[in-house]
């Protein structure tokens, strides 16, 4: 049983694709560490997206879609792609400790 939430990569459990197994164990420190592993240095603009995604997840139980993020925040699609190169939906969900975005069935 985990009593304290992990703040480092070693203390957390990931699946084979690199997504955090239990989104409830996520901490902002762990988010920073995952970002670093993905080659990203977090800025305020990154946090706008990550905080929004966490918030959505906690309210609705699902990570938001890209379209939802760009509609609800001032971050444009173009900016998201420069903040999270290599597929923002996947990379941002990884950093936010959420599962692989479904959005598509």
């Amino acid at each position, binding site marked *: 049983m985990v009593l304290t939430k992990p703040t480092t990569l070693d203390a957390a459990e990931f699946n084979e694709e690199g997504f955090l197994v239990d989104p409830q164990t996520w901490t902002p420190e762990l988010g920073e560490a995952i970002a670093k592993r993905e080659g990203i240095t977090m800025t305020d603009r990154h946090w706008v997206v990550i905080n929004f995604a966490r918030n959505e997840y906690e309210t609705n139980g699902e990570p938001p879609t890209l379209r939802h993020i760009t509609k609800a925040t001032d971050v444009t699609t*173009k900016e998201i792609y420069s903040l999270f190169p290599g597929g923002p939906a996947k990379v941002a969900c990884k950093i936010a400790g959420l599962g692989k975005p479904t959005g*598509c*069935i």
Partner: protein
Amino acid sequence: MKTLLILGGGTAGTMTANKLSRQLNPNEWRVIVADREPRHFYQPGFLFIPFGIYAPHDVVRPKRRLISKGVEVIFADIEQILPKANRVQIADGQTIPYDILVIATGCEIRPDQIEGLMNSGWRENVFDFYTLEGASALNRFLEGWQGGRLVLNVAEMPIKCPVAPLEFLFLADWYFRQHGMRNKVELVYATPLSGAFTKPQASAALGELLEQKGIHMETDFNINEVDGAKQAIRSWDGRELNYDLLVSIPTNMGAEFIEHSGTGDELNFVSTDKNTLQSKGYPNVWVIGDAGNMPASKAGSVAHFMLDTLVENIERQIKGQSPEPSFDGHTNCFIETGFDRGVMIDFNYDVEPLRGQYPLPKLGPFSLLKESLVNHIGKLSFKWIYWNILLPGRPMPVSNQLSLTGKNKLNFQLRRKKE
């Protein structure tokens, strides 16, 4: 007299109207369907039109004839739902009051959502095939085409019938071979997904089929714009793909009035409980088919599997009982793979497509995740089943819940055809 109002008379709305009009007491309930379009389209048939396998008359029938006589049908634009007042506003300011509302307005392609898609070349060398007009225009184009680079692009998920893009490519490969010009055509599949399909086992099996057929896959391709002058599509991460012929599956969205009613998400899909099919905001508003945000495939088979849950829960509500969470996300579909072969997949919210036989364990007759002639015949006979069993809301000889009997999680890969 109470009113049960169904918005939308497509696959889901027609089935719902026909079944509910039989189940509800006609002395207590009147059933009304409101829809803007008097023609019913057999949408699974659109896929076959570009290749001349079906003609437009195969896929269109008047809606009124498919809906029971006891149901009132109103053809008018729907403007807005006023859920607090239990009314729906239709064109010219009229409103229809309801006691129970069913939203079955599906989803539609929105080429206007993709930058440049409709600017130049639209329906000249840029086509959709999710509308009768688009599929027919593409058929005329293909009849005179000398070959080149065909790029099929899925703009954004979710899309209805998520296997249709793959089927299109499989049929295109077959069509160009039959016309002796496969060597003059390059087939490219540009998808926002990381593989051929959304579910891992099916993705691997279908990815292998694409490779066998010499279809190039460009994954994680999120389209930014269409440059009609250069005949290229560009992704947000800066990739550019040139085309001679672009076949687009644009963003799919729910009806616009959902946005005006404040009941939908950013794609106008109605927020719905995925197991009971009750809308999240209003207990007397129910959702069936593509119109909802349930994480199931947007397809007629899914709407059919939802039907029993929906009807049962509406009857429970009338009796003052709480809804049963009985819809499990059951989906199945035939995937045309060309050369008179087809693959069938069967899955739900929790179980991905597996190999095996369907609907009878070991006997089939349909083989799951494996090409067969019987699957292809199943796909073609589905048109008859659709008009005669599915739309009337008659029982099908298959369970609406997923069964794991007869399925095999191992050895899922498609057997390569013996040369």
